[in-house]
């Protein structure tokens, strides 16, 4: 039977009296991409750093490729790849030289040219790392993470601070890794990143798992579908009938209606708009967003603004 690449069993990590990770258990199956979501201080990076072997658990058991990461030897480190939370590269060398140096550490590395194509940096091969943009440097980080053909790849907020274009390029690289069978554990602040990439999502809050599910299932937990309508400039809350006024957002400019009976809500809205001769351009009807579901799960109030997902 194939070994489960990542096994975490009742993991606890204490810093003094404070539990950064408190009785966390999960597994990541072969070829799966697990996204770990959670607010700052939820324990995401602490968990990842234990999986990467940087720190030891206070209690519980962790196994990556059958090995305790804190005791992982060279052979074990050759089988994992990682991208740290912040870029960590010497600036003086070129991209190709940097990758060549790291490739030389592994028994069966990918060719430098292959990796550069994979992360879309082939045109920057001879550019000094220090001259790259933030997004390009993150892709060099990713290239170094995968150059050794890792069986398990850890990505700690790989797209934080990147512009939408750079994020999507990074996503493309990660998607091709998972399609080739690499097991990936990803921490992220971006709900849409988890939605795009993950087979499974874990939500951490206060060091504990508050959800362990698929993106689709997590979305369903977000509650009913939502109708959003931005009021024309000349309409105020006072112009709305009582049934609609209670759905006004905090700024008083949009209606946000969460209701299981979407058809009835729409009929009411359209009928009112028809009487006032209002244009309904911009009316949105959508499923519960993953962000709403995430906020519900970690116990935060839902935002009433229309959520943007670049």
């Amino acid at each position, binding site marked *: 039977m194939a070994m489960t690449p990542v096994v975490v069993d009742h993991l606890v990590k204490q810093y003094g009296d404070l539990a950064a990770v408190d009785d966390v258990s999960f597994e990541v199956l072969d070829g799966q991409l697990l996204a770990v979501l959670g607010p700052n201080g939820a324990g995401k*990076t602490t968990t990842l750093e234990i999986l990467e072997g940087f720190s030891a658990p206070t209690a519980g058991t962790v196994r990556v490729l059958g090995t305790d990461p804190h005791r992982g030897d060279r*052979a074990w480190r050759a089988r994992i790849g990682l991208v740290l939370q912040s870029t960590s590269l010497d600036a003086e060398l070129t991209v190709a030289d940097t990758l060549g140096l790291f490739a030389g550490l592994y*028994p069966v590395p990918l060719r430098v040219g292959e990796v550069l194509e994979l992360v879309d940096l082939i045109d920057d091969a001879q550019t000094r790392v220090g001259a790259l943009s933030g997004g390009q440097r993150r892709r060099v980080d990713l290239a170094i993470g995968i150059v050794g053909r890792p069986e398990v790849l850890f990505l700690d907020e790989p797209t934080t601070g990147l512009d939408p274009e750079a994020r999507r390029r990074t996503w493309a690289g990660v998607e091709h890794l998972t399609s080739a069978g690499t097991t990936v554990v990803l921490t992220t602040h971006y709900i849409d990143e988890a939605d795009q990439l993950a087979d499974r999502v874990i939500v951490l809050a206060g060091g504990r798992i508050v959800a362990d599910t698929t993106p689709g299932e997590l979305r369903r937990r977000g509650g009913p579908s939502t109708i959003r309508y931005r009021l024309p400039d000349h309409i105020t809350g006072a112009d709305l009938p009582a049934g609609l006024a209670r759905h006004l957002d905090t700024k008083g400019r949009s209606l946000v209606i969460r209701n299981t009976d979407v058809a009835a809500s729409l009929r009411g809205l359209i009928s009112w708009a028809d009487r006032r001769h209002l244009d309904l351009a911009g009316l949105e009807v959508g499923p519960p967003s993953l962000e709403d579901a995430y906020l519900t799960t970690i116990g935060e109030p839902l935002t009433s603004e229309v959520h943007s997902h670049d």
Partner: protein
Amino acid sequence: MTDTATTAASAVADATNLVPSTKAVRLPGAGKLLLAQIRYQVRLLISSGRAIAVGAGLPVILLVASKGKDTRPDVAGYAVFGLTITAWSTYGVRLVAAREDGVLKRWRATPLPRWCYFLGRILATALVAVLAGAVTVAAALVFYGSHFGDGPDTQLTVTAALAIVAVLLVGAFAWAATATALTSAIPTVEAAFPTLIFIYFPVIIVSGVLFTNLSEPHWLSTLATYLPAQPLIDAVTHAVRHTSGAPFLPVRDVIVLACWAAGGLLGAIVLFRWEPHRSTQRRAARIQQ
């Protein structure tokens, strides 16, 4: 599918398999990795330019400034000045910066043996520091000919030059290894230079690297013979003034330097810190929020 994705997809197809087979594979040998690491670190030092600019530039300026004066310059002192400032402060500041930027942490996660990384870094620094010292000696040859120092017996022969290179290597290693151990206690890049210089200048001043202080108390001049600067100057001077039949290098001085090298390396092995101080502090702050 976008062009980017298409290109990436073909790259994946070309790469026979991103995930290696599970059968045993042989890791690259440590010797090969150490050599690659030394080469890499030397390239970093040379390409940044600062190491050579400080390590060779300052002593050469001092040499030029002393030309035309009645007394001949202390070439050994200037060469040791260039070497030690490279192996101590330039190296130490770069090491702290690499640690706080997460560069060391990234290397720690690779299959590179950990000793290979910092030994490669120390050896590369020693080589560049010796190069800085050699540039100073070469400049002295240009300015003063092969007879420099304070007498007619101070002629630089090939054998003496080799002996000088050897002892400079040991000395540079001793300074860099000791700096490695010390940097573990320096929490930020901003604190690195003042901390290192605060230790460095008293040592080189009592050791007579830049000038000889004849009014120094006896206990201080005795202490200086146990620090890693004066034995280095003495050894270089001894090699320059070598007379036939005598050893090229003074044994006691070489032993002192070797002890500093071994002690520094031991301290580095025990105290070496891979993780940035800032990440530990930041994590604790996040949890307490």
